[in-house]
């Protein structure tokens, strides 16, 4: 961007300043119109200006890992939560540790609080487990039509069950059976991994109450029996039971779990050991599947994850339709249990009853990884703005006085030219304000005090651009040129200076934005935004306006109030400079 000679005949060349200006004004009107149309006429304010919600989370020890709550894990948790609530880095949420086992999350007013609470609290332990068996989940579920489809097809509906992962020859396809006894058998058989008999299990007809079933076949293996008992006892419609279903289970354990199928009905599963973990996921996105018209979450795996996924899908895909599913288990719950028809690698998708919001939330959580600890929400309180309304008010007044002084100074020094300066500042201010207001709902941008500071400094940087230009024009006039050539000749040089120096500013903003977190990131964003807008305003507003005004008599004739009076500027009369005719060398940009 610093290349000074590029596109010298671009926007702002003297030929069509009107067109450039018209385009700029249209863009500005469009932005402003968009702002009013979207109804977000004020920027979203950060927690220090508007207050917000403070959530206190307490880390909880998980069984088997007594020393998990340490500084390293807490710091990891903070950075993951920070990324979750502040994904783009501009929402000004604050995440901090408090004491040894608390994390405080401050979210500015106007954020979707419920969503944020889900995002911060979710542990996001993700496992891919083979489905061993599945059944309708509730004691009371009265024949939900959508669930437990009696034909176990290979549809991605998580309602069908699959046999044990090691079942080598699954010959029989499932016979739809409504008998709860069959379910029990299926469990037992599936769990006997050494049992060569292929097991055909079927999803239970929803009419059958799934629990508790006294007819469950007893098993030889006590652990299997215990699991089986747990499975039959489990009532997925009760939240307490759901959360407890597989608490404390290690990834290598065979577990029972609950999940909702596409018909929004609870179902319960027995799942084999985890084959793939959340750490194998490289990136996840919530996207709209155009073919099915539903929201899904796509995941890209890391190198290792790809291999593991190829292996598991290769194994599963050779099995008959009802036995080819794996369950995607998030924090102990089955989010989705898709079937596999071929060996897959590299990426996977989760489909289920997602809305746009839930798909994107899940993708967000998966992308930033699992928390090393489990957290419990301790308190949720509303906090007032750290910067009192009084102070903000006074600050605004002080800022306005400062701006007024700037205007007075510009008018005194530049006279007629200050009109252009003030218009440029105003254009820049309008653009900054509208874009900030639009970015609030757009990417969650929130204006906080550091951002306001960035904007105040931007006044200096924006003003500098046209001060550089004005001084160049005056220099040209001092050379004895008339205004119109002076305006055009001054531009290439001023342009280079503006681009080079703005680039440094932008570099600072970009590096800070990429490296830092939280407030500093928000500040860097504002600085970068205003720097880019500075270039836009100078190129597409200041320069064309200058060109147009140079044609007006008031400026062209060097009226004493135009700020361009050659006499006042001390221009040398052309006569004295006759020798200049012999020095025709052009500067490179001219």
């Amino acid at each position, binding site marked *: 961007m610093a290349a000074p000679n590029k596109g010298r005949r671009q926007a702002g060349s003297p030929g069509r300043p009107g067109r450039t200006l018209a385009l700029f004004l249209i863009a500005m009107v469009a932005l402003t119109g968009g702002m009013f149309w979207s109804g977000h006429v004020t920027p979203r304010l950060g927690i220090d200006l508007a207050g917000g919600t403070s959530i206190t989370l307490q880390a909880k020890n998980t069984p088997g890992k007594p020393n998990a709550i340490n500084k390293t894990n807490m710091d990891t948790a903070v950075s993951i939560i920070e990324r979750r609530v502040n994904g783009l880095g501009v929402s000004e949420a604050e995440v901090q540790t408090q004491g040894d086992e608390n994390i405080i999350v401050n979210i500015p007013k106007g954020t979707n609080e419920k969503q944020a609470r889900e995002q911060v609290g979710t542990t996001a332990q993700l496992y891919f487990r083979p489905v061993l068996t599945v059944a309708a989940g509730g004691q009371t579920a009265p024949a939900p039509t959508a669930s437990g489809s009696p034909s176990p097809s290979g549809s991605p509906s998580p309602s069908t069950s699959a046999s044990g992962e090691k079942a080598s020859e699954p010959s029989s396809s499932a016979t739809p059976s409504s008998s709860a006894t069959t379910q029990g058998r299926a469990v037992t058989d599936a769990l006997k991994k050494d049992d060569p008999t292929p097991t055909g299990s079927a999803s239970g007809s929803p009419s059958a109450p799934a629990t508790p079933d006294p007819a469950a076949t007893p098993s030889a293996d006590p652990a299997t029996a215990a699991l089986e008992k747990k499975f039959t006892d489990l009532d997925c419609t009760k939240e307490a039971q759901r959360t407890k279903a597989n608490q404390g289970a290690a990834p290598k354990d065979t577990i029972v779990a609950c999940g909702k199928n596409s018909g929004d009905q609870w179902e319960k599963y027995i799942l084999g050991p985890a084959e793939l973990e959340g750490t194998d996921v490289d990136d996840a996105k919530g996207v709209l599947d155009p073919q099915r018209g539903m929201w899904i979450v796509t995941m890209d795996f890391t190198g290792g994850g790809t291999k593991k996924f190829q292996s598991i899908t290769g194994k599963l895909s050779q099995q008959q339709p009802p036995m080819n599913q794996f369950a995607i288990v998030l924090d102990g719950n089955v989010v989705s249990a898709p079937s596999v028809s071929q060996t897959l690698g590299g990426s996977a998708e989760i489909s289920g009853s997602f809305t746009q919001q839930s798909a994107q939330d899940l993708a967000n959580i998966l992308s930033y990884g699992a928390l090393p600890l489990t957290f419990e929400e301790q308190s949720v309180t509303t906090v007032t703005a750290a910067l*009192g309304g009084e102070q903000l008010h006074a600050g605004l007044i002080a*800022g306005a006085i*400062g701006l007024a002084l700037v205007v007075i*100074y510009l008018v005194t020094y530049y006279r007629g030219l200050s009109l252009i300066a003030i218009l440029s500042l105003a254009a820049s201010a309008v653009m900054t304000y509208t874009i900030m207001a639009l970015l609030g709902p757009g990417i969650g941008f929130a204006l906080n005090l550091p951002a306001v500071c960035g904007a105040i400094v931007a006044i200096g940087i924006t*003003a500098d651009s046209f001060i*550089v230009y004005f001084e160049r024009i005056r220099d040209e006039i001092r050379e004895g040129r008339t205004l119109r050539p002076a305006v055009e000749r001054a531009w290439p040089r001023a342009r280079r200076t503006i681009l080079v120096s703005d680039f440094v*500013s932008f570099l600072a*903003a970009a590096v800070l934005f990429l490296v*830092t977190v939280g407030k500093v990131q928000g500040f860097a964003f504002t600085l970068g935004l205003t720097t880019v807008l500075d270039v836009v305003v100078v190129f597409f507003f200041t320069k064309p306006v200058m060109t147009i005004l140079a044609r007006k008599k008031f400026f062209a004739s060097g009226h004493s109030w135009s700020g361009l009076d050659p006499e006042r500027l001390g221009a040398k009369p052309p006569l004295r400079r006759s020798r200049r005719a012999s020095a025709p060398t*052009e500067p490179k940009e001219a």
Partner: protein
Amino acid sequence: MSRLGALGARLYRGEVGYDFVGKRKIWYGISILITITAIVGLAVRGLNMGIEFKGGAVFTVPSTSVSVAQAQEDTEKASGHDAIVQQLGNGGLRIQVTELDTKQADAVKTQLAEDLKVDEAKINADLVGPSWGETIANKAWTGLGIFMILVVIYLAIAFEWRMAVAALIALIHDLTITVGVYALVGFEVTPGTVIGLLTILGYSLYDTVVVFDSLKEGSKDITKQTRWTYSEIANRSINSTLVRSINTTVVALLPVAGLLFIGGGFLGAGMLNDISLSLFVGLAAGAYSSIFIATPLVADLKERDPQIKALKKRVLNKRAAAAAKGEAADGPADTDTEEDTEPGEAAAPAAAAAAGPRGRGAGGRPSGRRR
């Protein structure tokens, strides 16, 4: 304005000007003195780190009849830690207590409610972890480091390595002075301050780059002439952009000054004050250093370059010869100024503009061939 405009013109032509490069030793001295004061202040007084770096609690108490001093005493008694009490505009109090954890904070809150005779539910307690400011500041320093490396590379490519080095020194100079002022004034260092410092980094370099740009243009093809030394051209560059520098600085400083003095006058110490102080000091230092430190440093470094050294010798020889002949080498228009042409004299580059030797960049404005 007419006088200012005329001054601008004379500065532009180099008829008047301050010898920034020639008198650089004075300014280096002043800067070193200020920097040493800043470092001593930092070492002796240390920085008053804010609650975000130490951890603690902020209590916001609604309007109460208890005085600030009384509230401070009560809080310190209740918590056993130092407390900072501020009066808010609505008559309420903002009480900061450092190094408190959750449990202690609840106890202090209850005690405060009793002491200050307000409803406990109306006291808002905001807990701040010590890690927060630290994390933010640490990442900011990382960013600063990476930025400095990148910007040196960029300046070395866009200009040359000497300018990159000089810009970096000027930047460190500005940051040191700002931090030093914080130590001396005793203002609290908050994440806002850190951000103020980062702003300075962007601005200071921005300002330096504008002057360097003019210097680069002025020193183009310098070795092909024997009229001016590099230092003289550097000085001329500063002078010709002086009006711009002053205007830009005034425009940038006015709003910040408004925040600092007017806002500060209304409110006493506060968060806005914290940030605007670091901005004010930093912007002023940034403008100062790009003129008085960065460019003279470039000239210093440049004069060590063999080519430039040789040039200086040639220039001086030529001048000596010209003086011996008692003849103005530069053309009738500027005979009088020619007399003053000594290395490092302010008026020295004056004739450059008028004479326009060999169509050199800023030195000689080319004629308007296009129109």
